[in-house]
């Protein structure tokens, strides 16, 4: 059994004429945190959107747990065990916390797969438990998400990915708009994944945070991978020079 969780080789992606990913290789082991850094527009989100099935791949290969995979849509990525917290808002303002946590993967009592009766009791209980687990204290699973603060919303997004205990977690700038305290919580959470063998990709512009929690740091610029090294081999100042 290898420790390899995800292996991407020679990934390429074009947006029309824009060559957004150029022969990018990436490897993640179980229980490893990759810090992915790079300037705005470097291609970080593009890379992870391919891994989580949001975008198709123009060419290249992806192996997950040693098997070649063809991730055609987000559902396939989730079924493999790849959870993603996107850079943009993936909450539904008008819907309750419980609905948001389980959206797309609701526990049901009975019915056909796409038309089944929701198990609301389970949704309410489990969503509150998942939210407690990420250190957030929200009163009720019925509150619509529009009434939460930015940090609380991020907490719900993290609880969502945590609940579905994935094999791999991708966090695209999860600490944007968060207070110092809440940021620390997110960092702690990512740290805690290591011990249960979950591999993660952590994208952030805050190089101090990246340096603190990552085992390995991957830098990108203009669609190319420009560095890939264990964090012990580098310092924050060097990283600033590298990608700045």
């Amino acid at each position, binding site marked *: 059994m290898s420790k390899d969780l995800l292996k991407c080789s020679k990934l390429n992606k074009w947006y029309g004429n824009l060559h957004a990913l150029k022969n990018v290789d990436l490897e993640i082991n179980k229980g490893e945190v990759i810090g992915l850094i790079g300037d705005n527009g470097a291609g970080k989100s593009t890379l992870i959107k391919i891994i989580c099935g949001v975008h198709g791949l123009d060419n290249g290969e992806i192996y997950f747990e040693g098997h070649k995979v063809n991730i055609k849509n987000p559902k396939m990525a989730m079924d493999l065990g790849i959870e993603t917290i996107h850079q*943009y808002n993936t909450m539904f303002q008008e819907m309750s916390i419980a609905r948001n946590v389980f959206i797309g993967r609701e526990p049901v009592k009975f019915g056909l797969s796409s038309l089944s009766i929701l198990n609301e009791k389970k949704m309410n209980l489990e969503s509150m438990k998942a939210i407690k687990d990420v250190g957030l204290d929200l*009163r009720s699973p019925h509150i619509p998400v529009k009434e939460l603060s930015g940090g609380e919303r991020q907490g719900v997004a993290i609880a969502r990915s945590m609940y579905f205990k994935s094999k791999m977690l991708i966090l695209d700038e999860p600490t944007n708009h968060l207070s110092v305290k809440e940021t620390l919580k997110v960092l702690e959470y990512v740290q805690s994944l290591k011990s249960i063998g979950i591999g993660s990709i952590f994208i952030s512009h805050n190089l101090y945070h990246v340096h603190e929690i990552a085992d390995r740091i991957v830098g990108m610029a203009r669609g190319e991978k420009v560095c890939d090294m264990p964090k012990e081999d580098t310092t924050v100042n060097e990283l600033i020079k590298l990608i700045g």
Partner: protein
Amino acid sequence: MFSKNKIKSLLSRPEFSALAIFIFLIVVFTFVNERFLNSRNFMVILSTYPELALVALGITILMISGEFDLSVGSVFAVSPIVTMILIADYELHYIVSILLGLLAAAFIGFVNAIVTVKFKIPSFIATLGMLFMARSIAVVISGGFPPSVPKDLPTDWLVGRVDMLRVSIFWLIGIALICNYILKKTNFGSWIYATGENKEAAKDLGINTFWVKTTCFIICSVLAGFAGIIQSFRIKTVITSLGQGLELQAIASAVVGGASLMGGIGSAFGALIGTFLLLIIDNILILSRIDGNWFKFAVGALIVIAVILNTLTKNSADKIRLKDDD
């Protein structure tokens, strides 16, 4: 005493303002005209109600999913015309004919969905095109004169009288209850709201937004077709202009009932109240012998007032912050 919690959840319901206006108008109209609140008058109002409400219900579900359908008035004619042609010219069993009439509606809904979702055209435009095409089909396949409704056609199960009502009202109630249940209590219902509110996020969370929208287009179309069949059974004739102009009335009902043009908001109950509001306004104008042309004015005013009220109540609901002891 009402808890803050209850008031808040009441205010934030999409159909709240429609319900408030509804109660207000019932009271006012009762004073304006003593004939308003009598049972015979309500029987008149209720006779066309199920047909309009079914169309508004379909539009509401589609609007929740973030789309829109202008072709419902034309589908309202296509389904009964197909049904009658199959009964009269092809001598098919009437149930089979009705099912095929509904299938025609479903197909139109499917085409609307493909054009809108696959080609990424605003549904407003796609279904505007379908409004003309479907109406044209209705005229062409019937040669301009659809066969008349056979005298011996069993219609009681659909439009027969029960006391002062028509059976169709029970069909409406049944269908509305099912729709409400699907919207509020099933995973598919959740996906409809999610798709309407934030399609990209819904997609990225693994929801097949294409099928969610397509299903809603089909539901909307089939309900419009079914409503058309009910109407043709009730008036015992089919004409090619059946349902002309109905689309705007149905959309007005949906919007008054709290459905949002932006998607993600609306309810089955709202569609029922919205439709009823439009009908009682029409009714009071007739009772009071006011020039019928004021109807459009009243509907227009109602739409604007209902939407403003909606926004206001929603805002004030959002302002009520619950404390821990609530």
